């Protein structure tokens, strides 16, 4: 007991940022518990295990270069069963989602999703999570462990977790799976007409735009400001703008000098993609919209009124 196990995530041949963030957070928690920080690496490519130097030990399970939900899930479960860590950390990501629920369910462990902070207090783990589109924060007492948490991007510094070191490599066998899911291929991002990651100014629209025809209003403002038009997930999922315009967790991370958010509530998944912008200006009709917590300037107003007035002033 007392050990912290971090599920290393890799995509397209590289370990992801969240892996190093979890190592940094896991190291401090393992220290408090008097346990070891261990990483689990399933498949991947040569040299990955050596990059997990923040961990004292790395369980290495042979596998494919690419993520496989069943293979990774079976390896994680076997490692947890064999080594009984007190805390299992999994990224709150597309791959982590396939792993955390089934693990917690199969082993009957408590699970906290969307964790932004973790702390040991009086012998139990307290997980802070962002819920309801970032409008509420819940603190869950997970008990003394063992337990499973899904860590949000930003839970700790990736730099801290990117330590050189010589972790003990411990090979584990790859458990058999029923092979019902087959990985076919990776699909690289489509070529974009506009590279929103290279723009100094972005006008970004969200659900508040209401309907597809009204995107024109924001586009006109963007043109006038010499900005590119970007959007939050609901606009992309509705098929109103191409995927290459999506800012956020499943889209692109952008760092423009100025980010003008129109009708974007500011769900954690969106914030993850734009929090690094130099100046964030948010216009939203809901004064409680979470976007105002990260924006430098805010305006509670109807976005169409603001667009119209700005166009007249420009």
């Amino acid at each position, binding site marked *: 007991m007392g050990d912290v196990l971090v599920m290393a995530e890799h995509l397209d041949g590289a370990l992801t940022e969240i892996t190093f963030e979890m190592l940094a957070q896991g190291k401090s928690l393992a220290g408090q518990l008097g346990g070891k920080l261990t990483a689990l690496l399933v498949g991947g490519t040569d040299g990955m295990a050596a990059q997990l130097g923040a961990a004292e030990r790395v369980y290495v399970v042979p596998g494919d270069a690419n993520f496989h939900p069943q293979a990774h899930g079976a390896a994680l479960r076997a490692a947890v069963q064999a080594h009984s860590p007190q805390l299992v950390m999994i990224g709150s*990501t597309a791959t982590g989602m396939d792993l955390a629920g089934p693990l917690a369910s199969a082993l009957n462990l408590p699970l906290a999703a969307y964790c932004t902070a973790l702390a040991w207090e009086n012998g139990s783990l307290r997980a802070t999570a962002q819920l309801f589109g970032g409008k509420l924060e819940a603190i869950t007492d997970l008990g003394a462990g063992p337990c499973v948490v899904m860590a949000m991007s930003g839970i700790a510094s990736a730099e801290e977790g990117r330590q050189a070191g010589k972790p003990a490599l411990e090979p584990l066998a790859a458990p058999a799976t029923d092979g019902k899911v087959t990985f076919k291929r990776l699909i690289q991002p489509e070529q974009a007409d506009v590279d929103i990651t290279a723009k100094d100014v972005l006008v970004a629209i969200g659900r508040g735009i209401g309907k597809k025809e009204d995107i024109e209003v924001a586009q006109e403002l963007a043109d006038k400001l010499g900005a590119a038009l970007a959007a939050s997930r609901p606009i992309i999922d509705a098929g109103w703008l191409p995927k290459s315009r999506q800012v956020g967790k499943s889209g692109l991370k952008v760092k423009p000098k100025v980010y003008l958010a129109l009708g974007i509530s500011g769900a954690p998944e969106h914030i993850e993609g734009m929090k690094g912008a130099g100046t964030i200006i948010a216009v939203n009709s809901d004064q409680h919209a979470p976007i105002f917590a990260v924006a430098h300037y805010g*305006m509670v107003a109807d976005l169409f009124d603001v667009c119209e007035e700005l166009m007249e002033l420009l």
Partner: protein
Amino acid sequence: MIIAVPLKQVPDLVEDLTLDASGTGLDYESLKLKLNEFDDHALEEALLLKESVPGTVVVALAVSGSEAERMLFTALAKGADRAVKLTGVDANADNRLLAQAFAAAIAQTGGELVLAGVQSAGDRDGQLGPLLAARLGAPVVSVVTHVTLSGSAVTFRKEYAGGLMAEFEAQAPVVLGIQAARQAPRYAAVSKVRQVQQTAKLETLSVTAAPAPGGKVVALAPPARGQGAKMLGKATELLAVLKDKGVV
């Protein structure tokens, strides 16, 4: 093939969220609730599959609660073949509990392919799809788009970050957490839903679920905001900021 689509009611995030007397849960009585938008995408993808593959049956399921009937009749109006209301559990319960309820129901209704919304607003104890898959003993893949069927083979894409995707093929049974349907979810006119409500009947299934270890919520509150944004009152002030930052 039978496609099961679990539908979940969630708070409308446009409204203010009020807490209950304990201060650690939502006051569901006073909240405006609506269908989880990702579930609407899951239903749309299921209906598109039904339209393209003869013999596909779409079963919509919802736990009895204030929105259940509206969600289920709307699903029928949109083209679902069956609508099943689950009784015996709280529609606003945590996902660990709901997963048991839906798994028990799907064991009876059938559902080789389960299309669930990838996430919902209050997934404190994990997302429904993966928890449901574990209960069904089926594999799960989340953040999925572009589902196609060929016999018992299901092909789909899983989205990672930055537009990177992976294509997978699965042999049913499998649970997929749907990110977005290939097209925006269809709209069912209120008149059509009313008409269905008068002619169609919902099936009812009684299910049980035992509390699962989810930890104990000790605090629930709006996040501390730090300094927050400097609030502007007029478009002229916004223009002044844009000028100051060299945009215009």
